Structures are given as C-alpha cells and as structure tokens.
C-alpha cells in the first residue's frame, strides 16, 4: 500500500447562482480590475490516503465526493490523484 495525494476541487454547478463569486467580482471591480467578467468560488480539498494502486485511490476519492465532499445536487467535482512519491515528499 502506498500513500497518495488526492486533490479534490468542488465548484457550484454553472446553473447555480454563486453570491460569493459575485461579491468577489464586485471587490475586484472596485479595485480597478474592470476586465474581470466572472468569478466563481469553489473549494480545494487535499486528501492524503493509503491505497494499493492509483485506480483504488481514485475510486475511493470519487466515493468520498459523492457521499460527503460535494453535494451533487448543486456542486460538481473533479478528482486528481498525484504520483505516490509526490505524497511522500
């Protein structure tokens, strides 16, 4: 078994209003970044986990996302699993 680093990104679905993103957009405009057209705020979650192989780590992370890390009614997620040595660094 190796230790893997899973990088999970959770964002609100495009159809779901993101008031936090709108507030940040307002802030950027107030600072003078008038070129900014849209801001969406999501979450980044690092999960360090033991698994026999890449596929197992990835599958377990998907289950975690479906069950807890994301609410798939309103959010979508992506999972990236790094090389095992990356986690050991």
């Amino acid at each position, binding site marked *: 078994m190796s230790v893997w680093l899973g990088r999970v990104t959770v964002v*609100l679905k495009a159809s779901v209003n993101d*008031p936090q993103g709108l507030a940040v957009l307002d802030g950027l405009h107030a600072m003078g970044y008038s070129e900014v057209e849209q801001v969406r705020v999501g979450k980044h979650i690092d999960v360090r986990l033991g698994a026999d192989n890449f596929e197992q780590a990835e599958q377990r992370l998907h289950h975690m996302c479906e069950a*807890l890390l994301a*609410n798939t*009614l*309103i959010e979508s997620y992506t999972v990236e699993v790094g090389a095992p040595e990356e986690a050991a660094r």
Partner: protein
Amino acid sequence: MKVGVVTFPGSNGDMDCIHVLEQIPGCEPELIWHKSTDLRSADALVLPGGFAHGDYLRGGAIARFSPVMREVERFAGAGRPVLGICNGFQVLTEAGLLPGALLRNQHILFRCAWVHVRVESNASPWLAGAQSGQVLKVAVAHGQGNYYADQDTLRGMHARGQVALRYSDATGRISDDSNHNGSVLSIAGVTNETGNVLGMMPHPERSADPLLGSADGRVVFESLVHSLVGAAS
C-alpha cells in the same frame, strides 16, 4: 408525548426548543446527543438550528453522518414526525430526507430579522393546526437559507403539496421584496412526500412568546400535539 431534541456540536437552538416545548401542554421534551443511537422512545424529533460541526464543508454536511442520523432516517422512514429548523433543515436536505438544498443567501447578508411566511400546505402534522393561506410572523437568522431545487423537482413537489411555507408580506402577498434570501419561488419550508418530515428556515421556537415579538411559531408545536393525540384516539 415525548419530543426528542437532537443536539449536535454547534447546535444553538436546542435549549430554545426545549424551553418552548415545555410550555406546550402534553409535551415532554428531552435532549438527545448526536452520538446517541437511542431515541429514548420519542414520539417526534426536532433537529434544531445552529452551526452543527461548524458548518464546515456545507451546512449540515457533516452532521448528516452523526450516529443519531441513522436512527432519525429510520424514524422518518416509518412516517413519524421530524422537524428540522434552520440548520436542522440543512441537515435533513443533506441526508436526503427532504428534497433540494440550501445555498448562501443571494445578497450575501446574514439575515437576522422578523419575516412573514404564508402557509401553502397544512398537510404536515407540524402545520395541521394552521390554515392554508395563513400568514405567520416568524424570526429568521441564517446566512445559508436560499432554497434551491431544480425545475423537475419543484414541479413534483408542487404537485404533491410539498411546498409548506413561502416568504410573503404581512398580508400574504408573495413578491421579490419579501423574498429576503433569494429562495426559488420564495420557499421557506418544505416537507417530504409523506408530509411527516418538515424543514423550515424560520425559527418557530424563537417566535413562540408575545414578549419576544411573536407567538405565531407556537402553531408548529401545538399542531404536532394535536396530530399525535388525534392519531392515538
């Protein structure tokens, strides 16, 4: 009858619920810790407001996996009355016991105010004592109460009478002006398909004493007692 009030780490409305339930004739409230799997032979359950598990990840997301929730799911599945208030509503949607989800308020503000809600359906045992169309003055205090469900879900909910409460003005008129958090269709409270589970963002337990500004919330707890006594006799 026994009414169990579940305390999660971070709940803050639990003692308010106990306080009000103690004043409702026929009610014996009892606290249930979230790690307990013993519902103490409760006849009904209340999931109170607050910030269970710090609201980390999403409101209600982690509370949904507290040990007591397996029993709450069983209890609700057996058709027995469960009420989720504010954060408790979020827990029930996260657990899949109620449809939809609660997003951050549309205008970002944490809303702490008196609002009005109109009773759309009194089919739930928690609203049976209210009239359809009745307007209640109730307290809200939340930052994540913007109710969301997709169009298909909303259509089904409408057809089955699952929309229980909508934000309105004092006369019962519904408009964007009275929709203080951006909820779809101004929805403030919904039930499951069988009506025994009700989730609502307003706090009936903080709107149950005229000295505090409104006693309209009492109808929720009084309805429960009438429904359960009526069912038993």
